[in-house]
């Protein structure tokens, strides 16, 4: 049961991460005061990690561990929650040019939810594509707070959310152990399963939470 989850991170199952899932959990156990997470959602790149079974780790560390995917589309990268056989049959997750509108619509019809991530990022973020193409229909929310974003990328998202009325969520986008849980999402309801997560993401009642250490502000000089 969890209310604060990191909705976006990668383990060694992704090609560009070397972080074992247990190392994430050990790190969070050490950092519990700073990053009070209750769950993780592993969003591996261009795949769904069918083989990953983390039930023993859940029991050992007392955290909820769910599995999802990050796919690549003609509107940038999109997180897919509630991946099932039906969705995997419909879409080739290795294809880096998936049609975003079909992903959004058909994932929803098949019991999941697809949500654009790091929308402020050049080339692979929604905002840049919205400047050239019509907006997508059926987008429920976007990742407003991404732990891997460069300066200015998260800041661009506020206007997108205001314009389209999207829900906002957060994730660390961690590829390294020490980055886990720096950004996360707080829900108003308890999440126990991937079905709970999909339902909650559709319904709203969540917000990004930022656990990054704040840099001290320089003193004002008159």
């Amino acid at each position: 049961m969890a209310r604060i989850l990191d909705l976006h991170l990668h383990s060694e199952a992704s090609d560009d991460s070397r972080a074992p899932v247990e190392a994430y959990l050990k790190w969070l156990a050490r950092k519990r005061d700073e990053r009070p997470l209750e769950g993780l959602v592993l969003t591996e790149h261009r795949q769904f990690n069918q083989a990953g079974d983390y039930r023993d780790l859940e029991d050992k560390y007392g955290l909820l561990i769910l599995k999802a995917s990050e796919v690549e589309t003609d509107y940038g990268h999109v997180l897919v929650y509630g991946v099932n056989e039906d969705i995997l049959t419909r879409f080739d997750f290795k294809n880096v040019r998936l049609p975003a509108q079909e992903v959004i619509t058909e994932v929803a019809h098949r019991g999941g939810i697809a949500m654009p991530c790091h929308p402020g990022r050049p080339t692979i973020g929604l905002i840049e594509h919205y400047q050239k193409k019509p907006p997508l229909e059926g987008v429920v929310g976007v990742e407003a707070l991404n732990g891997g974003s460069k300066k200015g990328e998260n800041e661009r998202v506020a206007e997108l959310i205001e314009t389209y009325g999207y829900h906002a969520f957060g994730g660390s986008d961690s590829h390294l152990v020490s980055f886990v849980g720096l950004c996360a999402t707080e829900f108003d309801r308890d999440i126990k399963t991937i079905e709970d997560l999909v339902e909650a993401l559709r319904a709203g009642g969540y917000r990004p939470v930022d656990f990054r250490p704040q840099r001290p502000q320089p003193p004002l000089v008159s």
Partner: protein
Amino acid sequence: MALEFDRSMIGQVFDETVFPPVTTEEIVEFATALGETNPLYIDETAAGKGLYGGLVAPPTFVTKLRAKKFTPDHLPKFGKVGFDGGRDLAIHAPVRPGDQLTMLSTIHDIYEKTGRTGSMYFIVIRNEVKNQKGEKVAVIDHRIMQR
């Protein structure tokens, strides 16, 4: 549309290199060059009483091995430039003095991904290292990135 190339090349062995037997001197030199102080790698007598019952090479020793051919003759090209995209090393068994190592090279994977600066193409060259008993010693995956 998925990345297009001749998928039959995946997993095909394009090089087999057999190396001369590993010597004690070679192991000690490699370990010393790394600044290694663990007696398992530099002191035969002390290593004899250790975990492996004798001197062994440091885990990264296999990265000094060079195959006759690093890439196949017809390496696919997906962009104008290519560069080192990093390497992964998985260790399976220790290397000991006298071991005769063989390296088999294959294209393990080819894939595309997108990032802030556009599309990137990765070719993964896999070197599988075995000893004279046929035991798998190590697997080294080299990523060549093209764009």
